[in-house]
């Protein structure tokens, strides 16, 4: 059974059409991400689930219950805000215990233990007496998590929870959030504009553009088979080459001919950097094309090459894993590019 069910959600702010016919079913225990550029409606959709925004039309149901007319404080959801919204005038323990005030079902004497457990769970044991404003960004985030999870919500909503953290902290929190989600078994709905965040943490991702869900699926499905060029451009790195489809083959500028079924006419052909190889002398591939290294960016573990191809101004990006036995190629080096027709993504233009 789905824990969150959204049916044909429409949302207008005056003339502005913020959400367009959004329908999603999110399963119990799922880590679900709403991914999209800013202004795509992902935060609005999250706030609709939380009860901070009304829908213009459509249905929101949580745990089988219709949520129309149910205010945010009576919904079985809790939220981690982008700013964390830690109450600065309260201690860490009081922040975490804040939501217990209204929970008659939790006996008073067990509350201190619950707070301790919650702090333990997020790795903040012993921080209870601290003032909230004396915490670092990462610690605030943990307090926000503890404060929400202590109430055992049916759904935890996370609004860009990692955007305020630095890169190292962000990566650490990614795996920690995932671990926490598995541990508590609560459904997480995450809003993010960062595709890497969405890919690493989610069971399922909905990519949103202009108030509409463009594509929904597992991280792998989204990355491997983006259904539209917009989704392909948004997720991962991708070079687009011009192509022309005719009778079961696509003639790709710069690369050559590939046997791919596509509607006839002009097409855009997307190529992921990691599906290409720069062939070492003696190495062979299914398809080979000659090119020249135009530029390169060295990342330590990887090197990204921009390859100039004959017959096109578009530079093809190729990523190569760095090995001790493989020299980093200098711009100007002639190379043979190995590629597979199956890895090409063809979109009508």
């Amino acid at each position, binding site marked *: 059974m789905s824990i969150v069910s959204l049916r044909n959600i429409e949302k207008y702010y005056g003339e502005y059409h913020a959400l367009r016919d959004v329908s999603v079913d999110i399963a119990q225990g799922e880590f679900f991400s709403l991914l999209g550029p800013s202004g795509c409606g992902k935060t609005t959709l999250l706030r609709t689930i939380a009860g901070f925004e009304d829908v213009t039309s459509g249905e929101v149901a949580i745990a089988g219950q219709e949520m129309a007319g149910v205010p945010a*404080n009576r919904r079985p959801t809790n939220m981690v805000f982008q700013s964390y919204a830690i109450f600065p005038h309260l201690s860490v323990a009081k922040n975490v215990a804040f939501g217990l005030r209204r929970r008659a079902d939790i006996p008073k004497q067990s509350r201190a233990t619950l707070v301790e457990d919650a702090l333990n769970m997020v790795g903040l044991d012993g921080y209870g007496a601290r003032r909230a*404003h004396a915490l670092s960004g990462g610690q605030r985030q943990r307090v926000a998590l503890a404060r929400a999870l202590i109430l055992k919500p049916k759904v935890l909503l996370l609004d860009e929870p990692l955007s305020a953290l630095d890169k190292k902290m962000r990566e650490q929190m990614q795996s920690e959030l995932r671990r926490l989600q598995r541990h508590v078994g609560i459904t997480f709905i995450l809003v993010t504009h960062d595709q890497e965040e969405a890919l690493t943490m989610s069971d399922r991702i909905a990519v949103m553009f202009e108030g509409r869900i463009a594509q929904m699926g597992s991280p792998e499905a989204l990355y491997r088979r983006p259904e539209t060029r917009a989704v392909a451009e948004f997720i991962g790195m991708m070079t687009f080459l011009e192509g022309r489809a005719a009778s079961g083959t696509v003639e790709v500028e710069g690369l050559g001919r590939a046997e791919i079924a596509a509607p006839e006419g002009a097409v855009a052909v997307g190529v992921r950097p990691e599906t290409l190889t720069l062939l070492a002398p003696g190495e062979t591939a299914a398809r080979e094309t000659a090119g020249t290294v135009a530029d390169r960016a060295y990342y330590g573990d990887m090197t990204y090459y921009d390859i100039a191809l004959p017959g096109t101004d578009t530079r093809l990006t190729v990523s190569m894993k760095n090995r001790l036995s493989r020299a980093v190629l200098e711009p100007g080096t002639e190379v043979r590019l190995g590629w597979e027709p199956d890895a090409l993504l063809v979109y009508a233009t």
Partner: protein
Amino acid sequence: MTLRAYVIAYLLFLYAPIALLPLFAFNDSTIIAFPLDAFTTRWFAELWTVEALHAALWNSLLIAVVSTVLATLLGLAAARAAAKYRFPGKRGLMGMIMLPLILPEIIVAVSLLVVVIQVLGWPLSRWTIVAAHTLICIPFSIAILNGAFQNLDASLEEAAVDLGENRWSAFRLVTVPLIAPGIVASLLVGFTISLDEFIIAFFLSGAEPTLPVYIWGLLRFPARLPVVMALGTLLVLASILLLVLAEIMRRRGVARAGLKDKGGFL
């Protein structure tokens, strides 16, 4: 050297008149002039016996407290709306509310008198002054509280609602403690403005004069002048006390919210 002289002259200009108050309040003569006579406390003793003064003081305190509380409540509502919501005509509306700040008080006084007497037909009383003082205090309250709300993360109240509180209790539990310094400042400023406001009170007071109006009436009797000095001395003391109190409150508020102290009014 010239700078030091300038600063001394500056401070003299500011504080010499006020310093004269206690000087003549303890001077045993009805004539306000140098050289000073013997030391006395009889003017202060006399303060206790003047019934009309007590009535005026009571009027002033009552008016000041009621109007500053009203102005702060109304200012709170307006400042919160301005901080939280976007609506058409917001800027114009806020500008309209702030207008009494720059309107000459004499204009406000005359037009209020016309409204109260001619249009509404109410008798003049303390309550007409309360209404007028609320009006002139509101812009100050809004200006102060606007600042308090500006430092407030809008999602704090939402977080409280998300954690089960209703909108009112979220406001009480989260917003009020965080803007408390602003509320105190607004109450304090409103109280001070109302307490020494003369023009409007003079026009609207009827048979219930406020302290400034009563003092103005006393000036016709030179023999009573030292009593006024004694009263003034007490008022200066009370003001200093109030200011110190407000500053202590403000520093506490800043420390509690974990902000950096950027200096208050002291």
